[in-house]
């Protein structure tokens, strides 16, 4: 079997940091080779070197594509050589049709004019070739995230890509969409297309890969074929130490009720099919209440309704710390001791161009004001405290948040939330897209919160996390509560069955 892509002794330095340190691995033709590593291990930098975003003059070492040394100075070079990158963030134009997107920038032409018939005909054939049941004249914006991802892959393949770099392609996909993606990737192997696969979902990595290379601190720690790896061995190679307990939940004594929701019904969310119906629950001091369910079951919407009044509430009573709370806003919630860490941290959580310090104190700035002015020193002390407590990895706090890895960004969002000294913390998918080590740190933080008598509401799509970290679990299905579970006496199958009850 020949080698499609090989990387040898690649070193890439940024001022003060060695992002890649003599990294080597090789991808055999027609196989899937996964790269595993914590956030900041150097995976993204590696992808950028291979795809030519970092020109060959900026790194040391050698990259070979099908035996020839690749000296790319831009993405167009790597595309010509048959290398295509599928990013986590989609690069499709939502207001254009599938066909227009597939042929964006290389539209078939008849003289000066676009040959629309040929474009749609070709698109139809390409979609058919990969068994995708999609209509080329549908708008991309009308597709689900998963289908969009597939269109993106097909687009790359239609440009005769021989090597695909898939960077977290499943981060935003539902389980069923992940299955389709995995099927497509296995199908690609038969077509002799080689893939580099990067994902934080290790189950997926183990299912899909032929080889796995673990990267840590910019170095390739170990490359072995799939058979020789286990879930635990990958994790400990990534972290560099044994993680004995992935879900270190410590039960705390449960106290009085902090928030009570009774018969809440609401609709008018951005997902217009969704209506929350007759939802009742309470959360007590020292307790972690888990919310599970399928995508679109209304978990985020429920929390956003309680925290910021998103959607129209038609019915129901909410009591927050023994006081009625009927028309919530983020500002009012925060001053009453309720905080929410949203699922989409880049959209709702952070001002990406600003510094870590700016973001950390943003919700809590009022408390540092002295005679109308922000006391910069007092603020800096608090920021430094929280950054240390949450182990934010950065040279200093004036670094812009946008340049941090996902796990560190999440820590900043958590720090910002905790600085407001909340009694009730809503965590919506707090570990999405972050690595194992950072996950455990988030779990330990949850323990600290409940030990201090706070209440935590945890929304998660990862069943093991829900079972491992919650004291009680409520499952939502199509906007209704489909059951309450005791995590010690329930299995993933029980939860899944309830999640599909009303859908």
């Amino acid at each position, binding site marked *: 079997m020949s080698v499609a892509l090989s990387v040898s002794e690649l070193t890439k330095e940024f001022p003060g940091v060695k992002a890649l340190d003599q990294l080597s691995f090789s991808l055999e033709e027609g196989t899937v080779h996964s790269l595993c590593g914590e956030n900041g291990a150097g995976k993204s930098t590696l992808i950028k070197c291979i795809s030519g975003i970092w020109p060959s003059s900026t790194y040391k070492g050698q990259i070979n594509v099908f035996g020839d040394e690749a000296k790319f100075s831009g993405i167009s070079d790597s595309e010509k050589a048959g290398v295509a990158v599928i990013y986590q963030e989609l690069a499709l134009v939502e207001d254009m049709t599938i066909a227009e997107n597939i042929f964006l920038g290389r539209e078939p032409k008849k003289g000066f004019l676009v040959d629309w018939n040929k474009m749609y005909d070709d698109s139809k054939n390409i979609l058919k070739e990969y068994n995708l049941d999609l209509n080329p004249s549908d708008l991309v914006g009308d597709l689900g995230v998963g289908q969009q991802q597939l269109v993106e892959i097909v687009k790359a393949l239609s440009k005769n890509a021989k090597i695909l770099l898939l960077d977290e392609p499943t981060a935003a996909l539902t389980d069923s969409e992940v299955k389709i993606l995995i099927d497509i990737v296995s199908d690609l192997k038969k077509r002799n297309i080689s893939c580099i696969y990067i994902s934080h979902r290790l189950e997926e990595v183990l299912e899909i890969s032929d080889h796995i290379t673990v990267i840590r601190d910019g170095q390739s720690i170990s490359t072995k074929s799939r058979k020789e790896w286990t879930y635990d061995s990958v994790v400990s190679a990534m972290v560099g130490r044994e993680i004995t307990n992935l879900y270190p939940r410590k039960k705390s004594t449960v106290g009085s009720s902090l928030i009570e929701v009774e018969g809440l019904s609401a609709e008018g969310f951005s997902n217009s099919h969704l209506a929350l119906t007759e939802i009742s629950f309470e959360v007590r001091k020292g307790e972690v209440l888990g919310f599970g369910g399928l995508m679109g079951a209304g978990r985020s919407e429920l929390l956003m309704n309680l925290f910021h009044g998103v959607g129209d509430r038609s019915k129901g009573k909410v009591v927050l710390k023994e006081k009625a709370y009927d028309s919530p806003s983020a500002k009012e919630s925060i001053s009453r001791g309720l905080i929410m860490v949203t699922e989409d941290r880049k959209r709702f959580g952070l001002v990406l161009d600003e510094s870590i310090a700016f973001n950390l104190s*943003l919700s809590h700035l009022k408390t540092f004001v002295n005679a109308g002015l922000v006391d910069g020193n007092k603020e800096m002390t608090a920021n430094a405290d929280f950054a240390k407590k949450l182990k934010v990895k950065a040279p200093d706090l004036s670094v812009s948040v946008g340049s941090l890895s996902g796990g560190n960004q999440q820590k900043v969002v958590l720090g910002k939330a905790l600085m407001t000294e909340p009694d009730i913390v809503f965590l919506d998918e707090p570990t999405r897209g972050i690595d194992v080590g950072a996950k455990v740190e988030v779990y330990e933080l949850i323990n600290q919160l409940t030990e201090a008598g706070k209440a935590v509401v945890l929304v998660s799509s990862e069943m093991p996390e829900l079972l491992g970290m919650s004291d009680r679990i409520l499952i939502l299905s199509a906007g209704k509560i489909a059951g309450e579970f005791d995590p010690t006496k329930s299995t993933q199958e029980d939860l899944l069955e309830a999640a599909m009850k009303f859908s």
Partner: protein
Amino acid sequence: MNKEMSIRDFTMIMVLGLIWIFFYNQNPEFIGSRNLSNLAIELSIISVLALGMLVVLLTGEIDLSVGSGVGLLGGIACVLIFNYSWPAWAAMLAALAVAVVLWSSMGVLITSFQVPSFIITLGGLLIFKGLFWMVINSQTVSVSKGGEQNLLSMLTTFSFSTIVSFVLLAGVCFALFVSMQKRRKMQKEYGFESLPYERDYLKVFIICQLLLLMTLVLTQFRGVPLSLVILGVAATVIYILTKHTAFGRYLYAIGGNKEAAVISGIPVQKIMCFSYVILGCFVALTGFMQAAYQGSSTTTVGELMELDAIAACVIGGTSLKGGRGSVGGVIIGALIMTSLLNGMTLMAVSPENKLIARGSVLVLAVWLDVFFAKKKK
């Protein structure tokens, strides 16, 4: 990020230097104390407006109505003084009250009814111009009755005597040193590292030297103009407001990511509305200064000033998308704009060519901005 910003600022200072050398070559009178005094007054007028504009641009919004507003509010003050014999201070207060009402209503329309600020203020541009012409009856209204000096006309004509000028200079330098010392002391108390004393000291020393040079040149003519002191106060106010208050942080947060600002518990609508009110007050102040500078209010006062103000902000590194911009940058931007206008007037460049030159500089500045933004990535 800070490093990149300073490269950009440095480029702008170089550009400014080149402009000055060019005009000096064309006409050495450009750096004469008489011309520099005029330049200082023109700089003050456009900078005050641009500083107000900065506050709104930081949130990612815009205001196209300020040029007409300058005319209208200056016109109201002139009419009250000339036609109704009001004392100048009362006339200015009345115009200021009008500014607060007009700009807070625009703020409410933009935030509560979610109409794009571009449209609302474009409407404002036309409506204020109409009101302006109505107020002055499309005639020329002098800033003072019977040629007597009053508070309004003195805004740009009054200069401090040599002694007072130097006393002011000493006061400013003293304040700079005291605030530096105080900052160092606080940093020490909290155990933070501060710059080596020599560097901090040198920074303040150089600023003081520059101020001294400026005062020396200006006292060769009539002394430090009052309008320059007004600019100093306005710049200090906006600097403290944007960098050292919660309100200022919120402006940057809203411009950087509005949705995140809402979820962070920031009263976004209130802050944005208030940013328009602050701009309105600065428009009124600019209106008074501009009327005083021209000696009267006529139909053309304030024309195209909105574009000069926006240009000064953009040249100074303010992002039209919001979230980026600083007081220092805005003043450098305004200095570039006014130096160009002043120099071209001195060279007797035709009005047609002046317009083309202003436009070209704006386009060039935005191109530079995009260039630096790309480089940063």
